[in-house]
């Protein structure tokens, strides 16, 4: 049993290698069937840890009320965000906790299949999971069968409808969902899709109860969450923090710069937060007033002296290339936005015009894709123009700062491997 007020919870007993099933039972206790599981899940107030922070109970209940004797639980460990390392860290420590949570969810909604999806470009995690699933075959708890699927890594491949599309039809492309909530399906079978960390938290809630879960965190966002801190840190780290901890405390614990210029929160579809605001509690309800979110638990620290616009340009350029190019506004709009940002950052003559064009194009692109990929880029760009407003003026006045041409970068962006694809046929 893990003590209610102590951290870490889902990363308890992390030792650099995954816990075997026997060790896992010693640390967390046996996973017994829980009749009142959904009540406990509701009492816990757990929200999804993949970025959208949707209440896990409501999603599970929606899927439980679906008809059909063949349902799926999908554990999403794709981790499309280049700056996120939480799911692979979790699965390298406690893979059985994630699988426990998936089994509880499967039992609650009546699913016969559990699919664990990891990117094939992440072979260490694939190994840990296939080993853990093999260990479990000797004792089936509730009869749900595990499958391991390994789609190729892309940014949008971890988006829920794209992942289900892959499982259904081997295409990692987002689907059009005109009405929400939308039930994703593999064939005709309804799918409950949850992030790997969410499943791990479910595994703890099923064992220790909803009140145990709520004993840390805030009332509206209870519990703990994993954060991946990178950028101006001594070493990029994944930590488990209680929601509602002041962001400054989180940064200090990660060994990061505690007087940063700005912090990128949520991921590459997230928002910049001004360095003056880092005393804000790290929870959605307090970050929301500053137009930021917890998102997928990504924190990128930008030190003073670095150029936030140059960082945003690199991110926007890469995100434009990662578009699935299904929807026109995303396929054409995101490269245009990245071009405008680059003009604003580097081209002194065109900077003012580029700034106006950028604001207009952000408004045009927003909300017009099948998934939220373009909306994320728009949010990032808007927050950059807001947070680095003084800096924007400096660039627009015709003197690009020296840091904009620096080769030292803080946000991890993979190399554009196929840049020629930026031209859409």
């Amino acid at each position, binding site marked *: 049993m893990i003590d209610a007020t102590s951290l870490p919870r889902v990363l308890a007993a992390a030792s650099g290698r995954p816990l075997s099933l026997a060790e896992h039972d010693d640390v967390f206790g046996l996973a017994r069937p829980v009749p009142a599981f959904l009540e406990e899940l509701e009492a816990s107030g757990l929200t999804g840890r993949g970025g959208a922070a949707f209440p896990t109970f409501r999603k599970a209940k929606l899927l439980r009320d679906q008809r059909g004797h063949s349902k799926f639980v999908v554990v999403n460990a794709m981790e499309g965000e280049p700056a996120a390392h939480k799911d692979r860290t979790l699965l390298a420590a406690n893979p059985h906790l994630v699988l426990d949570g998936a089994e509880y969810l499967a039992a609650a909604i009546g699913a016969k299949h559990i699919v664990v999806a990891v990117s094939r470009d992440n072979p260490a995690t694939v190994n840990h999971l296939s080993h853990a699933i093999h260990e479990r075959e000797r004792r089936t708890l509730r009869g749900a069968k595990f499958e391991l699927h390994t789609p190729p890594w892309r940014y949008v491949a971890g988006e829920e409808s794209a992942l289900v599309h892959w499982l259904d039809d081997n295409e990692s492309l987002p689907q059009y969902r005109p009405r929400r909530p939308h039930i994703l399906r593999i064939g005709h079978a309804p799918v409950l899709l949850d992030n790997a960390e969410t499943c791990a938290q479910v595994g703890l809630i099923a064992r220790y109860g909803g009140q145990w879960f709520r004993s840390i965190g805030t009332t509206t966002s209870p519990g703990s969450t994993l954060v991946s801190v990178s950028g101006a840190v001594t070493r990029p780290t994944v930590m488990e923090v209680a929601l509602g901890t002041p962001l400054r405390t989180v940064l200090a614990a990660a060994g990061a710069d505690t007087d940063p210029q700005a912090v990128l929160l949520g991921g590459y579809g997230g928002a910049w937060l001004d360095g003056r605001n880092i005393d804000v509690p790290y929870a959605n309800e307090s970050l929301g007033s500053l137009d930021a979110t917890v998102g997928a638990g990504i924190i990128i620290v930008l030190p003073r002296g670095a150029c936030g616009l140059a960082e945003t340009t690199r991110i926007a350029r890469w995100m434009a290339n990662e578009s699935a190019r299904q929807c*026109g*506004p*995303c396929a*054409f*709009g995101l490269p*245009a936005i990245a071009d405008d940002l680059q003009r604003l950052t580097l081209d002194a003559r065109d900077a003012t015009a580029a700034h106006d064009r950028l604001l207009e194009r952000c408004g045009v692109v927003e909300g*017009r*894709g*099948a998934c939220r990929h373009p909306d994320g880029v728009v949010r990032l760009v808007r927050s950059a123009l807001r947070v680095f407003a003084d800096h924007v003026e400096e660039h627009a006045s015709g003197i690009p700062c020296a840091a904009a041409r620096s080769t030292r970068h803080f946000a991890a962006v993979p190399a554009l491997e196929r840049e020629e694809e930026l031209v859409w046929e």
Partner: protein
Amino acid sequence: MGVRRRIGGFVLKVNPILCDGFGHCVELAPDLVRLDEWGYPIISPTPVPLSNLAALESARYAVRGCPRQALAIERVADVQS
């Protein structure tokens, strides 16, 4: 065929995956649709009252005239007008 109810409203919705920017909709329903700089339709998300028969008819033309069948009319229960 029952009696058509004229209360409530409708919105024209585009499936952005199917849409390839042919632009027929802007010819057929110029009051509801405008184009962005890449030729893809921008449709206002505010519902139009069903009593606006001209708009409804043009929306129907747009739906039937779309070469990719990417448009749909969605009924909305109530509309402020």
